[in-house]
């Protein structure tokens, strides 16, 4: 789906994602869409839906919560990087890793409060020694021994498309938009609905909002 951004001249875009917890059914479509789009290695999920059982039988229920990089306004993973491989784009808030500079020290992995960074130690595929044709192509996007994370699908975002996870969500529980634009769908949703930001007390100013 195409993305509409009112990019006023000189205004910095602040990408945000709203997650409607009333709509999320925990289907893991976003998890799989991310895998398919970005070809992440086994055991690594840039986005995933975590779940927790609450209450007791017969009043037990499962709470779902899609977790991802929050592309924070004050990302704690960036200043800890000793090489400058972790950075935030100047014209928006997307946090990326320059894998050619990363030494794989894991400092950013433990600094991230959202457990959204990974350092795969090898490039083995899902089926043992031999990689599938898909894996052979997809694994060229990242390097083993360096940090990797959700890129908010910048390759799609920069050409006006939504990230794969958001495009795929069958219940439209995920909404992306410019938080600096008061007229964007996400800004309106955040204004209208009760919401929370994950672990906001840690001071990272996360840009993912959970609508309750």
């Amino acid at each position, binding site marked *: 789906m195409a993305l509409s951004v009112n990019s006023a001249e000189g205004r910095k875009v602040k990408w945000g994602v709203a997650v409607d917890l009333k709509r999320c059914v925990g289907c893991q479509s976003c998890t799989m869409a991310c895998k398919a789009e970005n070809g992440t290695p086994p055991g690594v999920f840039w986005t995933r839906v*975590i779940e*927790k059982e*609450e209450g007791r039988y017969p009043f037990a229920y499962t709470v779902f919560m899609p977790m991802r990089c929050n592309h924070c306004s004050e990302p704690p993973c960036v200043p*800890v990087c*000793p090489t400058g491989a972790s950075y935030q784009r100047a014209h928006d808030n997307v946090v990326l890793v320059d894998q050619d500079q990363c030494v*794989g*020290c894991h400092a950013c992995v433990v600094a991230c409060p959202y457990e959204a960074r990974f350092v795969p*130690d090898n490039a083995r595929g899902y089926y043992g020694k031999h990689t599938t044709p898909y894996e052979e192509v997809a694994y060229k996007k990242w390097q083993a021994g360096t940090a990797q994370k959700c890129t908010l699908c910048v390759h799609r975002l920069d050409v006006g498309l939504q990230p794969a996870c958001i495009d795929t969500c069958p219940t439209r529980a995920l909404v992306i938009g410019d938080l600096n634009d008061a007229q964007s769908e996400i800004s309106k949703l955040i204004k209208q609905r*009760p919401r929370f930001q994950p672990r906001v007390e*840690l001071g990272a100013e996360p840009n993912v909002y959970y609508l309750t």
Partner: protein
Amino acid sequence: MVQGFNAELKCQQEFGWLLSIWLFLSGTGCGLFVLFKLLELPVFFALLGLASIVLGGVVLLLELGSPLRAWRGVSRIRTSWLSRGVVFVGFFVLTGFLSVAPVFAPWLPWESAGLGGRALGWIAALCALMIVLYPGFWLAKNRSIPFWNTAWLPLVLVGYAATGASAMILLGSAFLRNGLRPFDALAAVLIVLTGILVGVYLLVMHRAGGPARESVRLLNAPPLSWSFRLGIILVGLLLPLVLVLWVPSAVVLAGGCMLVGSLLFRYCVLKVGVYVPPALVQEGMDFSRLNRTGTDLEREYAGMAAQRAGGRG
């Protein structure tokens, strides 16, 4: 590595033995160099300290995912403690070796005891002090792991660096012709101080609640309880204290025990780093419809069925 899909309290999985050994070697080695300067110990201890930090550096390289790019580690001195640490280590190794080099190369234009040698030695000692401190600052900066995110952690690591250094002195003194007996008392004082620091640190973390308390609980639960109670408390602190105070002939054993405890402490602290968990259920979320009783549900279903039947009719 495998990411979990549940929302329970989780420990970090990134750091283990390699980082613990690095923390141990760099802390102990640099502590030893600082004590070498402060107590004017034989040059053997300076070399031991330098060798320890070099070995620690090699271990750290093994921990890196891409060790060939390690030279890039000095790029973010303004923000990253790791980057600052690389600079401190570089200066320390350079100035430390230069300060003791005239002992082995008398043709050098400066002397170890001269102004140049002493200045180099004190610069190296200052860098060594920073190397003792910076891993604590780096870990304490991680807000995601409350057990580390405290000013007590750098303090305890300094305590353990000093204890490890005094253990090295105890071990080294056994191999030197003129023993260094006066330093037994120093070891005893450092063991007591470190023990107090560890106790206060764990008490503060226990009282902090949440993930920090969970970290303290994990220290006292299998599989780490043996390492913590037996390795860190008994072998690392109590036994060497008794040996140093009352069994002077066993100071080498005491030194060995202190080093074992010092290494295990770092390992345990790293392994019990519990992340702040995601808050799945927030205030204001309405779960009232999920808490309906069976009778309520039956009534509701009956109402719905009646509505449907009415609609058809």
